């Protein structure tokens, strides 16, 4: 093994830059892409201007309701400023909560509580308006209930048993417990995304995909070396050609494992993204064997590169539909992303290599 390390080093030191580039691509690429995706997601919130003219509990309630919405970013501003930003399309739309909002709700005078502004490019206006209307109806409904209950109790007992606060509190409580209708606004493509769970694995998704590409491309030494006339010399060395290749493949596996360990630590410490160690190990094992197989099969370097990119692209493109039964079964990344041990692809690749090794061994001994 020492001979393999020293001889490999002679190759690697000639191409340090590309060697480390491909080695670190999954880690660095996943970190960069992840940061980029975060930025894009921030940008994808629609900015909405809100002007709150009164400091009351109900106005505040509405403001907070708008703020908790998943797809809008609420900016509290001044009236003139908001209109200016709206005209320049810096704001999608503007809503003014007028002075007298709380009183209007409480007294069932639901006109002119809110003024809204939109442009022809307003995208979220209707959705936000719907949300506000439903919120006002909800709030107004509670005060209506207070009125009705009070009227009833006055009629039948002559005294009020329920204070307005009691009624509203109870109503809120019932609503919270029942959650009969839960409306949330989402982009269509994000419809499947549930809270944080869905995005938890995303950095490993990106990593796993880049790992396929870089594992394949770092195996290009095999293609380059098997094309050389030098292979003839391996009849007269202490390592036969197939042993030399296999041990080098193993060396790459070990190097990859070290990088994977670093990746594991960074992702779990920095991002709190846990992943099973055995899952990771089996995935790396599979990747090394698979890349080795692919490099054994192809003769020309450019064909090998083309096949590698194609494979990585296919894996990436099939990722969104991997829930389909057949694809989930065939996809090399599927087991890994479900935090399970990769077995199928690993055994297949190992089988091919074993077959190749056995045949080479027989040929070498018989010549």
């Amino acid at each position, binding site marked *: 093994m020492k001979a393999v390390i020293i001889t490999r080093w*002679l190759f690697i030191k000639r191409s340090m830059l590309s060697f480390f580039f491909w080695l670190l691509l999954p880690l660095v690429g996943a970190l960069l892409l992840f940061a980029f995706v975060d930025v894009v997601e921030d940008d994808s919130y629609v900015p909405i201007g809100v002007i709150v003219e009164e400091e009351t509990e109900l106005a505040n309630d509405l403001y907070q309701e708008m703020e908790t919405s998943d797809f809008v970013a609420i900016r509290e501003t001044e009236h003139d400023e908001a209109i200016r930003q709206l005209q320049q399309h810096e704001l999608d739309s503007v809503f003014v909560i007028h002075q007298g909002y709380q009183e209007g709700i409480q007294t069932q005078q639901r006109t002119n509580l809110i003024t809204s502004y939109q442009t022809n490019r307003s995208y979220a206006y209707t959705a936000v308006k719907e949300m506000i209307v439903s919120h006002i109806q909800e709030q107004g409904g509670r005060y209506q209930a207070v009125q009705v209950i009070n009227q009833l109790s006055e009629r039948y007992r002559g005294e009020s048993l329920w204070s307005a606060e009691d009624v509203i509190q109870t109503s809120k409580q019932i609503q919270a417990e029942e959650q009969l209708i839960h409306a949330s606004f989402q982009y269509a493509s994000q419809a499947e995304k549930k809270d944080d769970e869905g995005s938890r694995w995303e950095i490993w998704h990106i990593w796993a995909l880049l790992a396929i590409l870089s594992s394949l491309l770092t195996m290009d030494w095999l293609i380059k070396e098997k094309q050389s*006339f*030098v292979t*003839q*010399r391996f009849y*007269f*060395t202490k390592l036969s050609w197939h042993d030399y290749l296999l041990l080098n493949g193993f060396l790459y596996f070990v190097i990859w494992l070290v990088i994977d360990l670093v990746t594991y630590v960074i992702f779990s410490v920095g991002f709190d993204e846990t992943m099973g160690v055995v899952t990771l190990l089996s995935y790396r094992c599979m990747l090394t064997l698979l890349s080795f197989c692919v490099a054994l099969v192809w003769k020309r370097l450019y064909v090998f590169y083309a096949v590698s990119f194609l494979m990585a692209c296919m894996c990436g493109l099939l990722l969104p539909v991997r829930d389909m039964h057949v694809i989930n079964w065939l996809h090399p990344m599927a087991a890994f992303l479900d935090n399970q041990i990769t077995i199928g692809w690993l055994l297949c690749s190992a089988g091919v290599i074993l077959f190749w090794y056995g045949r080479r061994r027989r040929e070498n001994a018989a010549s």
Partner: protein
Amino acid sequence: MLQVEHLTKHFGQTNIIDQLSFSIEPGEIVGLVGENGAGKSTLLQLLATISKPTSGSIALHGLSYQNDLKKVRKQIGFVPQDIAVWDTFTVEENMIFFEKLAWNHRSKEELHNLCQDMNLFQWKQRVSTLSGGMKRKLNLAISLIHQPNLLLLDEPTVGIDLKSRIEIGQYLRRRAKEEQTMILYTSHDLDEIQRLCDRVLLIGNDPFYRDSVKFF
């Protein structure tokens, strides 16, 4: 001593080598001549254990090619017709690469001397920037790292100038006499064969070679 008996090699229906028998004594340089396609490379590959004869037997110092393959291989130095070195490495790195994979250990100094003996002084230079003659010398030097008893050279001097040819020739003569190495050497240059070799082995049926070789 190398002993070849009734060696035959077919490729499909074509008979390239037919019932060939000869032997080489230690310290002897034998020239192998024949027209293109006569089967010189084929014979060398058989002797180098790279391919298997259809029939016949070969033995090196009493070791049979069939039964003691591993031991036989340790004693063979094969210089391929193609230049089999790593192009991106320097001369030094090439020597170190094959020393690491060789059965016996050679110090860096020994490797360096080996190249110097052959008048190859570009120790730190990259192979891709070497001339054809220098590459040929390196091609030979690598095959000598594990100190073989039997040296098989397939046109080692193709495309190199007279000075380098003479240098390589002188080196081989010295080596044969000093280390009792058996050398089988192919070339299309009959003058070179005449200058270098103790004996000539003719294969193929080309009358031109038959007549030329008669004069030795």
